């Protein structure tokens, strides 16, 4: 990793590295609320996220690549979310799943709810819905994979 933020890789190597990274994502479930049930349903036999290379359950945040924030982000929980995000090593991505973590959702006027997790974390993919179907999560993962394929690690890590 000490090399990758200084050197722009040649195209075949960059292609292979990104191809390997995008098809071996390890997602940390930050299943907070109702969207957690649909996220879990996407890992179960009917929708099966494993066929995209995404393995659902890492043992700890330190081993995860993607954090799927699924559910309402209540103000009391935000320090925990930020702490878990900081525990993840680079390169890391965030998917905001459901309208509560996109923008506050149906509780936008509540006194205890954060209006979207993108006020605190950099979000890559927003999946709308309340709750989104598991197929929507699969679509979001595919869009993230397209993004990863185009990515240049030098630009990402040298900032």
């Amino acid at each position, binding site marked *: 990793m000490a090399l990758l933020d200084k050197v722009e890789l040649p195209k075949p190597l960059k292609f292979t590295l990104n191809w390997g990274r995008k098809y071996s994502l390890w997602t940390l479930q930050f299943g907070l609320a109702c969207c957690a049930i649909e996220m879990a349903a996407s890992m179960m036999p009917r929708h099966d996220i494993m066929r995209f290379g995404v393995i659902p359950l890492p043992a700890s945040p330190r081993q995860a690549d993607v954090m799927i924030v699924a559910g309402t982000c209540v*103000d009391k929980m935000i320090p925990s979310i930020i702490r878990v995000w900081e525990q993840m090593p680079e390169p890391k991505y965030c998917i905001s799943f459901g309208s509560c973590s996109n923008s506050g959702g149906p509780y936008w006027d509540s006194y205890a709810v*954060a209006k979207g997790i993108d006020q605190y974390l950099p979000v890559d993919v927003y999946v709308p819905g309340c709750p989104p179907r598991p197929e929507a999560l699969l679509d979001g993962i595919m869009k993230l994979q397209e993004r990863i394929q185009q990515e240049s690690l030098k630009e990402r890590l040298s900032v």
Partner: protein
Amino acid sequence: MSDAPAAPTKSLLDEISSEVRALLGDDVGDLSENREQLILRVAPEKRPEALAVLKTLGFEFYSFCGGVDWPEDEKLEVLDHVFSVARRARVTVKCEVPRSNPRVPTAINVYAGSDWHERETWELFGIVFVGHPRLRRLLLADWQEGFPMRKDEALRARVEKPWPGDFFSG
């Protein structure tokens, strides 16, 4: 086999009313029937006694404790709802406290389940339950100010305030 569910009959509620009056006597502020439940109003100091009397009459199931804010009348109200499995009847016990000094004795020695309900009512309305061993926050965050469920606290999303996500500066 099914036994048809029945709303508690008037005679059952009358029977319970007379038993309650016999045991509580003058402490009963008002005892009336309202849509298949009994509503018992007592003075705030008599709340644990009223609940203890109900418990001896078979109302062992402690359902909830909540608060209501009546700003025009300058008072807060404490509701306790109990249920009797054997007799299939429900009673709501109501106490009124002034908004300037909302203090009610705790019912934790009568029903152990009132512990969490009283903590929640305190933090949302500001009603102090005297005698509760550890009256501390249950649902709200430490930095939350005020008593949110009172009517004069507006939902602040509709009012501008400084950004709450500023955990890292200062």
